[in-house]
C-alpha cells in the first residue's frame, strides 16, 4: 500500500469561495431552524454579510497567484478579478432579490409547489415570498466563483452544475405569471441539461485525447499533437457548445428571451450580469490557457459565432415589443462584443473582456431594477407600449433609464463606451478587423431599439392606463444608485478599474 497525501490547500486563497458556500449552508440551517417570521430578517443580512466578507477576503488576497488543491483551482489574476466582480454584482443582485416593498412579499412566490391558479394559490398571493431563494443564490454565486477559478475540466464541470441548478430553480419561483415562470424554468433546465451533456462529452473526449484533465496538461498535449487529431477537435467543439450555451451565444441563444422574460426580474438581472460573467470567465480560461497554441484551428469557427451573435442579437432586439425580451436580445449582442475581446487572445483582450463584463453587469442590473418598478395592477408592465409617456409621469426614473439605455448604446462618458472601446481596441490590436467592423455595425443597429424606448418614454402622451413607477424600497434604491454610479463612474474615470483588470490579466499555468 503506497502512502496517500492530501495536496496542500491554500485556505486563504480559497477563503472567498468557502465564505460564500458557507453562507449558503448556514442559510439552509436557518431555513430549518429559524421560525418563519424571522427567516427573511436573518437570511438577507446573513447572505449580504457572507458576500461582503468574501469581498474583503478577496481584497486581502488580491496579490496571490497560486494554483492550489492539487492544481484543481487556479487563484490567479483573472480568477480573483472575476470573483471580485461576481461578488460585487452578486451583492447588487441580492439587494434586488431581497426587495419586498415594491411588491408585497417580494418578487418570489410563497410556495412554488401550490398549483398555479388554484384557490390556495390565490390565498398565498399576499404571503411573503419563499426564503429558500437566499441559500440558492449563495450556492449559485459560489458555483460561479468556482467556475472562474477551476483549473481542470472536472472541477469546471462540477462548478457549472453547481451554479446552473440553483438558477433553474430560481427561474421557477416568480410570484406573478407563475406558469410563464415555470415554463421558462423547464426550458432552461432541459436545454441546460443538454448543453451540460455536450460539455461532459467534450470533457471525456479531451481526456481520451490528452490523458489529463488539467488545462496546462491539455495545452501541452495539444501543442504536441498538431492540428490533425479528431478527438481533440471533437472535444473542443463539444466543450464549446456547453460554454457558449451558458454565455447565450448564437446559435445556442434560443433559450435566452423566453427565460429572461419568464424568470422573476431580479433573477433575470442576476443571470444577465453574474451568469454571463462566470460563463466568460470559463471561456477565457479554456481558450487562453487550454487551447491558445492551436488557435488557428478553432478561431475561424468562433469568429463566425461571434459575428452571428452580434448581428442576430442586434437585429432581433429591434423587433421586440417587450422590455425584458429586448434586454435579453441586447444581452445576446453584448455577449458577442465580449467575445471579440476573448478572441483577441492577448492580455489586453483578457483585461478588456473582464472590464466589459463588470461594467455591463452593473448597467444591466440597474436596468432590470427599473423594470421591476414600472408596474400596474397585474405586476410589472413589461410591454413597451405601456411605457409610452412614462417620461412625463416620472421624470426621475425615465431619466435614470435613459442614462442606462445610452450606456447600452455606447455613448461616450458612460461605461458602455469605455468597455466597448476596451474590447474593440484589443481586437484591433490582434488584427481582428472584421470582428470590430461587425461589432460597430451591430452597435449602431442596437442603438435603435434603445433610443426607441427613450423616445417612447418622452415623446408620447401618457395614456389613461400608463403604469405608475412604484416608489423603490431601500434595497432597490441602493441597487439603482450603485448601478448608476458604476455606469457613469466607469465611463468618466475608467482608469482605476481598467488598470486593475490589466494587472490581473495573466493566467497562471
Amino acid at each position, binding site marked *: *500500500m*503506497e*502512502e*496517500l*497525501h*492530501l495536496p496542500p490547500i491554500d485556505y486563504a486563497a480559497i477563503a472567498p469561495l468557502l465564505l460564500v458556500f458557507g453562507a449558503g*449552508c448556514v442559510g*439552509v*440551517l436557518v*431555513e*430549518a*431552524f429559524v421560525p418563519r417570521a424571522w427567516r427573511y430578517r436573518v437570511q438577507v443580512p446573513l447572505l449580504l454579510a457572507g458576500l461582503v466578507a468574501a469581498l474583503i477576503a478577496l481584497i486581502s488576497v488580491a496579490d496571490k497567484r497560486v494554483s492550489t488543491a492539487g492544481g484543481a483551482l487556479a487563484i490567479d489574476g483573472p480568477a480573483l478579478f472575476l470573483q471580485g466582480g461576481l461578488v460585487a454584482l452578486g451583492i447588487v443582485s441580492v439587494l434586488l432579490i431581497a426587495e419586498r416593498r415594491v411588491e408585497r412579499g417580494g418578487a418570489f412566490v410563497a410556495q412554488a*409547489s401550490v398549483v398555479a391558479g388554484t384557490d390556495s394559490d390565490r390565498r398565498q398571493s399576499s404571503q411573503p415570498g419563499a426564503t429558500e431563494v437566499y441559500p440558492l443564490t449563495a450556492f449559485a454565486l459560489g458555483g460561479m466563483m468556482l467556475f472562474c477559478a477551476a483549473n481542470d475540466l472536472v472541477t469546471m464541470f462540477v462548478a457549472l452544475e453547481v451554479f446552473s441548478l440553483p438558477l433553474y430553480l430560481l427561474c421557477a419561483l416568480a410570484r406573478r405569471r407563475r406558469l410563464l415562470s415555470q415554463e421558462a424554468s423547464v426550458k432552461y433546465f432541459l436545454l441546460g441539461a443538454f448543453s451540460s451533456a455536450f460539455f461532459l462529452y467534450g470533457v471525456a473526449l479531451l481526456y481520451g485525447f490528452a490523458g489529463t484533465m488539467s488545462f496546462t496538461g491539455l495545452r501541452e498535449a495539444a501543442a504536441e499533437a498538431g492540428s490533425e487529431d479528431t478527438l481533440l477537435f471533437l472535444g473542443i467543439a463539444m466543450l464549446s457548445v456547453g460554454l457558449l450555451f451558458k454565455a447565450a451565444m448564437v446559435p445556442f441563444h434560443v433559450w435566452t428571451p423566453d427565460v429572461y422574460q419568464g424568470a422573476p426580474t431580479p433573477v433575470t438581472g442576476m443571470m444577465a450580469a453574474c451568469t454571463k460573467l462566470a460563463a466568460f470567465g470559463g471561456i477565457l480560461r479554456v481558450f487562453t490557457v487550454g487551447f491558445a497554441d492551436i488557435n488557428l484551428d478553432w478561431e475561424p469557427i468562433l469568429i463566425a459565432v461571434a459575428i452571428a451573435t452580434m448581428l442576430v442579437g442586434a437585429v432581433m432586439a429591434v423587433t421586440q415589443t417587450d422590455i425584458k425580451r429586448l434586454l435579453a436580445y441586447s444581452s445576446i449582442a453584448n455577449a458577442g462584443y465580449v467575445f471579440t475581446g476573448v478572441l483577441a487572445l492577448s492580455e489586453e483582450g483578457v483585461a478588456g473582456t473582464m472590464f466589459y463584463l463588470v461594467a455591463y453587469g452593473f448597467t444591466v442590473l440597474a436596468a432590470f431594477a427599473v423594470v421591476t418598478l414600472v408596474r400596474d395592477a397585474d405586476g410589472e408592465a413589461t410591454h413597451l407600449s405601456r411605457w409610452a409617456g412614462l417620461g412625463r409621469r416620472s421624470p426621475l426614473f425615465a431619466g435614470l433609464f435613459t442614462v442606462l439605455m445610452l450606456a447600452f448604446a455606447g455613448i461616450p462618458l458612460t461605461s458602455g463606451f469605455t468597455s466597448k472601446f476596451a474590447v474593440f481596441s484589443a481586437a484591433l490590436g490582434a488584427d481582428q478587423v472584421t470582428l470590430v467592423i461587425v461589432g460597430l455595425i451591430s452597435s449602431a443597429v442596437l442603438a435603435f431599439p434603445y433610443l426607441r424606448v427613450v423616445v417612447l418614454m418622452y415623446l408620447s402622451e401618457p395614456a389613461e392606463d400608463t403604469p405608475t413607477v412604484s416608489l423603490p424600497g431601500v434595497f432597490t434604491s441602493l441597487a439603482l444608485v450603485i448601478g448608476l454610479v458604476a455606469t457613469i463612474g466607469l465611463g468618466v474615470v475608467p482608469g482605476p478599474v481598467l488598470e486593475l483588470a490589466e494587472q490581473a490579466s495573466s493566467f497562471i499555468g
Partner: protein
Amino acid sequence: MDGYLGGYASLGLLLIAAALLFVVAFGANRLLSPRNPSGAKTTTYECGIDPVPGDWAQAQIRYYVFAYLYVLFAVESVFLFPWAMVFDRPGFGVVTLVEMGVFIAVLALGLLYAWRKGVLRWT
C-alpha cells in the same frame, strides 16, 4: 478460474444457478398443477367490488421528495464505496475522515432541512 474475470466467475455461476432454480421451480409448477381455465377466473375480482375504469392512477407529486431523498443517498453511497477502500492508507488517516465528514455533514443539512419541513412525517 484465475485472472481478472476469474474473480467474477463465481458470481456468474451463482447467477446461472439462480436462473436455473427459477426456471425449474416455475416449470415444475406448470407441469404438475391442474389447470381449468374459465372466463370468470380472468376477471380482476371474482367477487366484491367491480373495478372502476382505468387500471392506472396518477402518482402524487409530493412523493417525489422521497424518491429524490433516496437518490441523494444513492449518490452519497457511490462516494462512500471508494472511500471505504482507501481511508486506512498510511499517511491518510484523519484527513480523509475529515473530508468525508464535511461531505456527509453538508448532505445531512439537506436531510435536516427535510425533517424540519415535516417531509419525513407520514400523514
